């Protein structure tokens, strides 16, 4: 049986639980530190998001009534596209001077790298959302301060990041990687996006939970299964 390097044998990893978490934390902190120094990524994601919203405004010619109905869709389409910028940058930074090798040398299970990266990516997405939502709210006079919406945002962003980090690791090793990532990502992401848009929309309209539940359920299922799949497959993707 082929085992990925640093395979998940419990005996080897049990006393290493704290080492594992330390590595995950170190990677998240490192990604945030790199971003803090250059602020390149967040700025581009933010500007990109706002531009996309603007484009939708003119492309769809939304009047006030239509806007509140379509807000969920516009917002999620925006996040979906802006998210790919984050994913690309996140994996590309490890390509410079082969920093990824440095991560692979860490004496823990390689999935720690996956979770570290995925958590960093979801943090960036949520940060972008944090700025985008109020701006949208003001520009279009739509009240977006909704607990349900925030829940959907967190779940959706986490599912996105979980599958996106895995695929970005794959795309990084292929030709035409910036184009390949969206092509690989969006078909797998569509169910999550659909559920997120529906759930967000329903929450904004104030519908009963029973109505929203199927979509929310799907989001939760994805938020749990995608990281599990990432955990299983990341080793196979980064090994040489």
């Amino acid at each position, binding site marked *: 049986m082929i*085992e*990925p*390097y*640093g*395979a998940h*044998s419990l005996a*080897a*990893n049990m006393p*290493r639980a704290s*080492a594992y978490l*330390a*590595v995950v*934390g*170190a990677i998240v*902190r*490192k990604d945030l*530190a*790199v971003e803090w*120094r*250059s602020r390149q990524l967040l700025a581009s994601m933010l500007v990109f998001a706002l531009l996309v919203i603007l484009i939708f405004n003119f492309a769809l010619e939304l009047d006030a009534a239509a806007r509140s109905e379509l807000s969920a869709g516009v917002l999620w389409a925006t996040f979906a596209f802006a998210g790919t910028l984050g994913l690309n940058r996140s994996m590309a*930074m490890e390509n*410079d*001077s*082969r*920093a990824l*090798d*440095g*991560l*692979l*040398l*860490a*004496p*823990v*299970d390689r999935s720690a790298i996956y979770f570290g990266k995925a958590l960093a990516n979801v943090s960036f997405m949520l940060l972008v959302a944090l700025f985008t939502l109020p701006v949208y709210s003001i520009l279009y006079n739509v009240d977006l301060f909704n607990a349900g919406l925030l829940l959907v945002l967190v779940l959706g962003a986490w599912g996105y990041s979980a599958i996106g980090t895995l695929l970005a690791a794959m795309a990084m090793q292929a030709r035409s990687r910036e184009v390949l990532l969206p092509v690989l990502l969006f078909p797998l992401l569509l169910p999550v996006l659909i559920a997120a848009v529906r759930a967000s929309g329903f929450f904004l309209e104030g519908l009963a939970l029973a109505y929203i539940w199927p979509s929310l359920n799907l989001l939760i299922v994805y938020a749990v299964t995608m990281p599990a799949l990432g955990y299983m497959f990341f080793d196979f993707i980064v*090994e*040489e």
Partner: protein
Amino acid sequence: MIAARGLGKRFGYRLVLESVNLKVNPGELVVLLGPNGAGKSTLLRILASLSRPTFGEVEVAGSRFPQQAAAARAQIGFLGHKPMLHEDLSARQNLIFYASLYGVKRPDARIKELLNLFDLDPRRHEPVRTFSRGMQQRLAVARAMLHRPKVLLLDEPHSGLDREAITILDGLLRDLAKKGTTILLATHDLQVAQRLAQRVEVLAAGRLAASWRRRQLASRQFPSLYDRALRRAQLGGQHA
């Protein structure tokens, strides 16, 4: 400390390493000598668990790969072709990050010690991007030794270093070997071999071609012996 049996590596359709049997005992300083393209980097990467061998077995620091690779990595320090540094972060931040990956105890003291040793302390807060090639290389060597590994795998560590730095590095390596660190150093430079090696293994065209002890290195005929070994290896590889 390092044992490779029947090691082979194939990339797609290219056979890069073949039937490599290598043994390095604890505290030995062995130089892996060979021309560019011989497979030295590939061999080191396999021993560092960054690459999976296509054939054969590897055991480093008492751990067999792949099952116990994660455990072995705690004892391995690796320096590759590229420095594996995050260019947007400062020298100190890079070392802090790696220290947390390896769980180094009392990291601040250890980092300060290494920064001083490699004369990087004055510029420790500046981004690595602004460092010269030689400075980046020094930092990379520091990173490899940060966690006091029992095994050091170094790929052309002297490249880019000026005379002074070379002297410091040589002294450091001899010192570490004396104190029990096992060192495998890859280079194409005969002089490095003559200065440092207790034993030389010649790698050419993916195979181990010759093995010499220190006494033989001092002889004036060493360079021509080396040439002959290389030629034999090229010829040997040509009959398919």
